[in-house]
């Protein structure tokens, strides 16, 4: 018998416990303001900010300029973006002497050193967000690879303001995670941090030191 068979055999031989019903999570309702309300958005922003992220309101027309401004303020010289999306195209059109917009197009191992050492900031879109915990949902893809949101010291994220779920479970249900999981899904709730030294919070442990959310309001509700 293999280890697998022996382990499974031991488990199967164990006396059955009292039957356990599949837990019903229906009654577990997150305590967050209703969908679409200004309060829900405010909660999200507050939580993100308290986790040391920046949140900037913007809209469909102006967010690339806002990003450019912020990047300049933060002395970003190389901005890494994905490939093949509209947002990427718009950002690439802003490529200049002072801000190099670089597209992630080759497998990481072919340019790992440069990725780790020469990029100042990365840009991704968020699939959605979560109000209860102040979190962003990212589904990396071939157009927006996984390391875009991890290796560069600054992470810019574009988020549509309407894509704000109450909690993680709702996000999973509405977006049908269980049937269409990508290779990697991420829920990000702030910049990288640690409290491993004397419980003192420090940011930028291994991942981005700064997380900057561009909260994109559609025209009608834009402030």
């Amino acid at each position, binding site marked *: 018998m293999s280890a697998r068979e022996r382990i499974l055999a031991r488990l199967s031989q164990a006396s059955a416990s009292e039957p*356990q019903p599949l*837990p019903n*999570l229906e009654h577990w309702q997150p305590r967050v303001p209703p969908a679409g309300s200004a309060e829900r958005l405010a909660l999200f922003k507050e939580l993100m900010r308290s986790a040391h992220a920046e949140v900037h309101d913007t809209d469909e027309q102006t967010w690339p300029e806002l990003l450019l401004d912020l990047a300049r303020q933060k002395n970003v010289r190389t901005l890494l973006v994905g490939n093949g999306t509209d947002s990427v195209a718009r950002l690439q059109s802003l490529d200049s002497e002072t801000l190099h917009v670089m597209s992630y197009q080759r497998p990481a191992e072919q340019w790992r050193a440069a990725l780790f050492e020469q990029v100042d900031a990365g840009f991704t879109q968020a699939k959605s967000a979560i109000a209860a915990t102040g979190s962003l949902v990212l589904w990396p893809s071939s157009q927006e690879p996984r390391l875009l949101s*991890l290796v560069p010291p600054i992470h810019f994220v574009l988020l549509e303001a309407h894509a704000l779920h109450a909690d993680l*479970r709702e996000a999973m249900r509405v977006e049908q995670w*269980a049937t269409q999981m990508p290779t990697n899904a991420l829920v990000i*709730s702030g910049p990288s941090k640690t409290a491993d*030294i004397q*419980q003192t919070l420090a940011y930028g442990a291994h991942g981005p030191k700064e997380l900057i959310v561009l909260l994109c309001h559609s025209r009608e509700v834009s402030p």
Partner: protein
Amino acid sequence: MSTVSRTVAPDFSERSRQAIGDEAQRTGIRGAMDFLQSKRKAQFPDPQELSDLRDLGAAIRRYALANLPELLQQLEARLTANGVQVHWAETPEQANALMLEIAARHQARLMVKGKSMVSEEVELNHAMQAAGIEALETDMGEYIVQLAGEKPSHIIMPAIHKTKQQIATLFTEKLPGVSYNDNVDVLIQIGREVLRKKFAAADIGLSGVNFAVAETGTLYLVENEGNGRMCTTVPRVHVAITGIEKVVAKLEHVALLNSLLPRSATGQAVETYQNFINGPRKPGELDGPEEVHLILLDNGRTQAYADPQLRATLQCIRCGACMNHCPVYARIGGHAYGTTYPGPIGAILSPHLLGFGAAYPLVTASTLCGACADVCPVRIPIPDLLIRLRNEAQANPQAARKALRDSGAKHHLLLTLVWRIWALLYGRPRFYRWFSWCASRFGALAPRHQGAWTHTRAPLIPAPRRLRDLLPQQNRLD
């Protein structure tokens, strides 16, 4: 990288005595625990919500355990379909052999490790080193502890026993070109710079698993630092290692459990990164590992599983809240336990992993105050399990029913006899009355040195007259 542990006393009592004597460390641990306790408390302002959540958390874990063999097979099937290679290990040796085999196939020289208590449990670093492979801890706390040649003293905060000054000194000694600076931000940046180079160069990334989802074949990992994502994304090979009990049935169960885990563990609402790994890099994708492996470890867990009461041990989600609230842990810290898992969870889990030889002192080292069970997010009745384990250890080894492979290992004829006599005295009213009468009559003769009791306390002297001797007639019921 050295992993020699500093000389530790072979015996629990001696280790705890040493720890209690280390005033600075004790103050540090106490401070950390007070901090974690108050942060946890602030996360659960509504006792009803907490109670409901714990009910659900417990139900999810119990459901997973009740269906464990089926769920493990479902998990394996889904993972395999997703392209993940699943391995099973009954012992630490098997787990390490699997790991070495994978490493050898890729001619690996450097392995970067995310936080994994199971890798500590199997002493993976040791096995890797013996094979000439550098196994580098990358969680800041673990990195510091490894650099110091020590072991983690807490399952969530490995370097809880160290001050920033000690860490600054350590960095100065061990890292070339680093001068002393005990500013925490500076220390973290030093660690960041060192480790980034390692991530970029590593051949294998190792991680633990917080939950493995049977429904989707998902490995779920949470962390704050980003090193876990580095280890599972940058190297060409990712190996995850976990205990067989970490499986949950449904993806949404993860969402609920994680509304308990970080709040119970460190008192934060949510971790910075929740990482759902569903497989290796797909064609067209530009990063992520080309190979993902999962090693499922037994190492005594099936023994705990076999007993309907002790099975509750496996509900654990490794939040560490029990140790953060344990008065014994507060006094002796994690190292004194001498086991991978310290504190209350260590006391109920270690007998299955290590046997009573190493774990029995842990089972006795509890006042049964119940602080652990009070905070356990999945409602493990830790004191009840400790009582049961005390019973198992001392049971007659001849007994037919043995819940642990070494049940009865601490069976002691004299001790059993003492309890027999006690039961005889207290179970026979006449004996008891005679005995206690003697005790009070001759109480003045009570020894002034009463063994361990008078070590730190005044002697106990029975009152000259018992309550029953002093009772007014109308209260006596013969």
